[in-house]
């Protein structure tokens, strides 16, 4: 423990916010064409001023409380704890309005967009969770909303497409490249290039050019802000031994880790999607398979060919099916501050059924990866563990039904 803390000591202060150029260690920055420079520069100049303005904070906190339903409960999962021989708490982001943590960020960004004087909102989405969360706040704020979604994902995620449309959003199929999340993100960025003045791009994860990774992490940091006081109420200490979250781009993990990033006694566990298995060629475990590179405006770890072409990942969970990872997480990985595990599609499915039967909670497939991480840790009865249950499983019922039908 002393050893680990000493080694990490040299990185103190590098986790909670990037340097002024947007770097966490070697990762981050703003690798964008000149056409995006004014938009990103405006955001960089304004985001902290706006976010920490008292009026903004009041509006943000009020909506989180009365509209999203925060604070989300920190639930002591007794039967899960028994099974894993430790004390496990679930941070219930699945109980938020729209069913996942994504709305914390979209509420924040739509308020910010209004203060920047923008009228038109664009977003990318994979499974549709971020798209729904964006369409929801656009309906709430009466703003025009375009959601870019891969053509393949539109076919796979019909219920979320319908929700977005019912909320008044236009769902635009991304037909370029592999027609999935990566390409939806490219299309959203291209839209932003073509509409530089009136449009704000609500990125759904801690990816993209600086200041997006930092801004999204700050909006999601409400998760660990609450965990600290909730855990103190329940155990007498704000600090657990382990904090576990799933990671695709990494927004729920960033929010769950945020107020523990500089508390080196707390082990931060990120669980990536191994897909069929890390070495099968059908995986989304970016820290295991990626190399440093540039994707969607920042330098991070990227799954790519030897020639530097970005490859299509695989995960049963659409929310983790992304060939990159936020620069903060790449830094956590490189410095050893984070423990990076991976769970296969099957392990995640097993964990989803285990949690459902033990606690009566059907998790999103993404969050099931975090639960699956429990099996890979050597837990003892003395350990307190907090797991971010980032979303609920309604959207994944088709997949779960297939499993039950055998």
């Amino acid at each position, binding site marked *: 423990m002393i050893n680990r803390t000493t080694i990490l000591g040299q990185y103190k202060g590098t986790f909670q916010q990037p340097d002024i*150029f947007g770097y966490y260690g070697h990762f981050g*920055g*703003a*690798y*964008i*064409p*000149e*056409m995006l*420079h*004014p938009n990103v520069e405006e955001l960089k100049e304004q985001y902290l001023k706006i976010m920490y303005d008292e009026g903004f904070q009041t509006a943000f906190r009020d909506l989180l409380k009365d509209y999203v339903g925060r604070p989300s409960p920190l639930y002591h999962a007794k039967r899960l704890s028994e099974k894993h021989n430790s004390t496990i708490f679930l941070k219930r982001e699945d109980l938020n309005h729209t069913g996942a943590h994504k709305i914390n960020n979209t509420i924040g960004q739509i308020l910010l967009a209004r203060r920047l004087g923008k009228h038109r909102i664009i977003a990318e989405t994979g499974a549709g969770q971020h798209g729904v969360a964006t369409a929801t706040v656009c309906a709430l704020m009466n703003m025009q909303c375009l959601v870019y979604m891969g053509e393949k994902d539109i076919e796979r995620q019909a219920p979320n497409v319908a929700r977005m449309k019912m909320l008044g959003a236009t769902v635009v199929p991304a037909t*370029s*490249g592999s027609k999935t999340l*990566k*390409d939806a993100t*490219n299309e959203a*960025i*291209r839209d932003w*290039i*073509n509409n*530089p003045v009136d449009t704000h791009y609500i990125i759904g994860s801690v990816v993209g050019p600086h200041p997006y990774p930092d801004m999204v992490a700050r909006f999601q940091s409400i998760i660990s802000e609450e965990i600290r006081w909730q855990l103190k109420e329940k155990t007498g200490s704000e600090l657990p031994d382990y904090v576990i979250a799933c990671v695709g781009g990494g927004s729920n993990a960033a929010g769950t880790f945020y107020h523990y990033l500089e508390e080196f006694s707390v082990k931060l566990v990120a669980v990536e999607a191994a897909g069929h298995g890390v070495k099968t060629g059908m995986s989304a475990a970016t820290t295991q398979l990626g*190399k*440093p*590179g*540039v*994707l*969607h*405006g920042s330098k991070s770890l*990227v799954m*790519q060919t*030897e*020639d*530097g*072409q*970005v490859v299509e990942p695989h995960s049963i969970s659409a929310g983790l099916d992304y060939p990159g990872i936020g620069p903060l997480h790449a830094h956590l990985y490189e410095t050893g501050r984070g423990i990076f595990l991976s769970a296969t599609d099957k392990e995640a499915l097993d964990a989803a059924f285990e949690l459902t039967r033990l606690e009566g909670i059907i998790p999103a497939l993404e969050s099931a990866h975090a639960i699956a991480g429990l099996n890979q840790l050597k837990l003892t009865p003395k350990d307190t563990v907090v797991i971010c249950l980032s979303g609920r499983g309604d959207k994944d019922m088709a997949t779960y039904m297939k499993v039950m039908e055998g």
Partner: protein
Amino acid sequence: MSRIQQLFKQKQNNVLNIYCTAGYPTLNSTIEVMEALQANGADLIELGIPYSDPLADGPVIQESGGVALQNGMTIKILISQLQQMRKTIHVPVILMGYVNPVLQYGFEKFCKDVAAAGIDGLILPDVPMREFETEYGAITKKYGLDFIFLVTPETSEERIRKIDKLSTGFIYAVSSSSTTGKDKNFNDVEVYLERLKAMNLDNPLLVGFGIKDKATFQSACNYANGAIIGSAYIKALQQNNDVKQATKKFLEEVLQ
């Protein structure tokens, strides 16, 4: 003095730069396309390195890049094709691409190898200015490669002045804030080009994005040293399998 600088010393007006995608329409057509461009009056060639995620490009160039990747184009293959380039190609040639494949190849190794093959300059639109100043600029300079930055109607005067200091070769004036291949009302652009012209920059100016025919080329040339045509030429190649014929017809129409 670089080949690009020599060109602008000899020719200050109506400089025509044509974009083509390496490995398109077929893997081994790269040199053939460049020869056809040179033979029919292109003053400068911008050769695109295909990439899986070309953020700044519109559908036409994206699609040509996708075809080139399917054809098997890689940076390694491109560099091997370029070894013979200077036997027949005498106009300046610039490589345009995105930074990720270049980083995987190795930024310095890339500069060294393409410079040795006779490439004159680079356009890497997602290399940030700060990283260019602190890291990459010294390397491009070491291998004698010109580095071309973009400016847009939204770029501030202060930033344009800084870009002018950092650029060598020429400055690429994006005629509107858009991805490549978009039709825009050219009149809206004239105010901005007038402003750029009045700044009396050290570097020559070429206007790109939205230039597609004789009329738009001529309008751009009223304000700048020349212009860049990309998507419209790729479309011409899409519509006619005969590279020589398609190129001849296309350039005749632009330059007649």
